[in-house]
């Protein structure tokens, strides 16, 4: 295996209120806290969360490091996708924990049941489950003419 072959890609999210955000991700999405690094003054350096086989890092916003939270920059240009067996149940659990629905969960033309949520810290999450196992040709033929 080449030494340059990536092992994984891990998003690093900046939030205002890292402690609360970690609590939200655990409750809303069933994330598991694997590791936490805290500065002597109590500020969270980073928290490593597992979402299934994927990992996500959470840090407190730090403008001096250009590590800005979505609320600071006025939105987020990134969407994180969680794949799960029961997407409706996960969305319900996330909303109960404080997420808002941007796009309700529904059948999507590419063969998944899919919806979009925004968490209380401004990050956007797609939730998705495989439904039909479509071939690439199936998906192409079902693609609408425009967005």
């Amino acid at each position, binding site marked *: 295996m080449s030494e340059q072959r990536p092992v994984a890609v891990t998003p690093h999210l900046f939030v205002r209120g890292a402690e609360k955000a970690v609590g939200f991700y655990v409750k809303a999405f069933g994330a*598991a*806290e*694997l*590791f936490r690094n805290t500065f002597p003054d109590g500020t969270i350096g980073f928290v*490593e969360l*597992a979402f*299934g*086989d994927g990992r996500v890092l959470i840090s407190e916003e730090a403008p001096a490091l250009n590590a800005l939270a979505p609320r600071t920059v006025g939105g987020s240009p990134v969407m994180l996708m969680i794949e799960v*067996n029961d997407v409706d149940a996960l969305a319900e659990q996330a909303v109960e924990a404080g997420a808002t629905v941007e796009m309700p969960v529904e059948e999507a033309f590419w063969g998944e049941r899919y919806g979009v949520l925004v968490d209380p810290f401004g990050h956007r999450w797609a939730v998705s489950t495989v439904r039909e196992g479509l071939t690439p040709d199936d998906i192409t033929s079902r693609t609408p003419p425009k967005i």
Partner: protein
Amino acid sequence: MDPVNPTPPLTQAGFLVLLALASGERHGYAVMRFAEEATSGRVRLPPGTLYRTISRLLADGLVEETEDSDRDAPHDARRRYYRLTGLGRLAVQGEADLMAALSSAAARAGLRRSDS
């Protein structure tokens, strides 16, 4: 939960930790040594990997910390004692069965080395 797979999926590191605990409780350092011996040094569980793997197994309810752990010691997975839960035993048994079946399939495909 998935009816075909009633236990959470395991990473290789997760499987090794469960396998290390299958014969009884151990502290983290013994788990690291077991992994190295069981794989003839091919798989290592450095402290960071061990800590994250055990955190994950605890969160999934596959292992639990025993009362023998030194609670006053700094939080270090190498010094704490762990044991399998019932679900953990089910998970490691299921994975071992799957590996045995795959190993047989590999042998039938002519992949068995003459020295093993």
